[in-house]
């Protein structure tokens, strides 16, 4: 670029230059103002929001500006992290009003740390019919740390591998069991087959076979015995037809017995009537006796009266012993 002294510029050229310079300055001003406005919008300055306070024992990994997500969508932003007097951390989250309806009284908040050290704040609202979470509400946040599980997982895995090594070793019980299985399989293929495997030696297996043969003979004999018993019981002169005839005779005897019982019933009715008559006769006897007693008392009093009036009557005296 060459030096151009200002004094040499004509006025018209100068005006045009000034206009272009103003345009450039306006462009810069516009870009800066637009960037500031966009950043303020992106930071949520123009958006009304409500405060949510999440309480945790440990806020490691939480950073200002971090998102609070619901179903994968960011609905809030961490605006501040404080340490309370009791040692708990207070994570202050700004939730825009338009998204606040996703948070309910029953909502659960989690703080999870991934394997790569990334931390996520999540909200879960199971019952969307619950009352909406009020502003400045305080909720405990559940902390789940994936990396905290790693040492335990590694220890478990090591133990598992050690057990597997022990199990699969040459001196292990599993190897011995597999050896035995192999021997058993070889014996299964032998002449005695499964019997040889079950009984352990050929002599016992032979005994078992002999016992089976004798059992078969015994069964044949029992079969013949059963045929004879069948003849005896169910044959033409067997036990069953005679039993049936005896039952018929027994039925007839029972009928006769029932008739006899009816007659006895009639006799009992007669006896009951005789007993009733005897009871009424007994009642009459009682009144008769009363009358006799009254008559005797009258006769006795009459005799006493006669004796008193009788001139020879002796005075009655009482002698004491």
């Amino acid at each position, binding site marked *: *670029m*060459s*030096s*151009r*002294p*200002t*004094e040499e*510029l004509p006025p018209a050229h*100068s005006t045009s*230059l*000034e206009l*272009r*310079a*103003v345009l*450039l*300055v306006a*462009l*810069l001003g516009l*870009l*800066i103002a*637009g*960037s500031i406005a*966009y*950043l303020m*919008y*992106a*930071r*949520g300055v123009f958006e009304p929001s409500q405060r949510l306070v999440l309480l945790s024992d440990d806020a490691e990994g939480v950073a*200002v*500006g*971090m*998102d609070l997500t619901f179903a994968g969508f*960011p609905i809030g*932003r961490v605006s501040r992290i404080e340490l309370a007097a009791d040692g708990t951390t207070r994570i202050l989250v700004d939730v825009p009003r338009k998204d606040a309806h996703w948070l309910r009284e029953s909502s659960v908040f989690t703080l999870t740390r991934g394997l790569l050290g990334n931390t996520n704040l999540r909200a879960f609202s199971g019952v969307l019919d619950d009352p909406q979470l009020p502003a400045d509400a305080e909720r405990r946040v559940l902390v789940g740390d994936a990396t905290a599980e790693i040492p335990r997982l590694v220890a478990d895995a090591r133990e598992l591998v050690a057990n597997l090594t022990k199990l699969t070793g040459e001196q292990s019980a599993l190897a011995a069991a597999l050896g035995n299985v192999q021997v058993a399989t070889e014996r299964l293929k032998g002449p005695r087959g499964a019997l040889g495997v079950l009984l352990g030696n050929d002599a016992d297996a032979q005994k078992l076979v002999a016992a089976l043969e004798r059992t078969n003979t015994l069964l044949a004999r029992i079969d013949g015995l059963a045929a004879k018993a069948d003849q005896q019981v169910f044959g033409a002169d067997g036990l069953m037809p005679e039993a049936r005839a005896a039952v018929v005779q027994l039925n007839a005897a029972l009928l006769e017995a029932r008739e006899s019982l009816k007659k006895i019933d009639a006799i009992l009715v007669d006896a009951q009537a005789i007993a009733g008559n005897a009871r009424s006769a007994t009642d009459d006897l009682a009144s008769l006796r009363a009358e006799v007693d009254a008559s005797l008392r009258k006769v006795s009093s009459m005799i006493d009266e006669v004796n008193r009036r009788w001139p020879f009557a002796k005075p009655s005296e009482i002698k004491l012993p």
Partner: protein
Amino acid sequence: MATAVPANNTIADLARSARDWLAGWWHIVLFSARLMVLAFSPSSYRGASRAAMARQMVDDTAPVLLWFTLLSALVSLVIIHIVVVTSVSYGLSRYALEMVVRVLVLELIPLTAAMFVALQVALPNAAEVAAVLPQDGGVHAGRRVQLLNTEILPRVLSGIFAVLLLAAVSCVVVAVLAYLWVHGFTAGGFAGYTRTFGRIFDPTVTLIFTLKTLGLALAVGLLPIASVLYDRPRVRERKSAELRGLVRLFFALLVIEVAALVANYL
């Protein structure tokens, strides 16, 4: 005794060099302060100074604006592609956009704009200033003020303005390109992108970014010209003075960039 004298001379030379170096910086700081006062004075934007400033700004910025923007967009596209593909291959695609914005908008674009303006605008301007000044340095006070108003201040402000404008335009273009590259021609990802932007540019990062860009712009605008003016008595050739200004400028840019990185990430 024979070796003691050269050793003493070496130490004395080193001390003198260090003193001269610090004195040079001190002169530059004083000159920069004077120019800033002049820049904030309304009288500097009247009459011949105003016309000179307008001409300088247009001549310095307009020719480089378009092709610097195109060049930075092209290079940024390559970087965006590399970052996105690498992130996807490692299963970290959700961090790709954030990384692109941090790497390009926060770090590379302002530094690239500053270095570009330094090489294309500021150093030639410094050479022009050196050419305008009389070789013997003997000018009377009135002429010195006139030179300051019509030749030096417009060039300094033009350099600062060029850095700011190029950085602003390129940042906006790269931000738009990053969105289009990741989400395509759809407005569906705008909310998430805006949220990512808001998360990156928290107040601290924004302040550091602003201060860094302003610092780079001031360094590019002031240092080459100030170096030409105040290193002249110690050098015999102009070329050497420009080279010295370039070294000072890159040293300052390095310090500003490192300071911004330390403030951002430590």
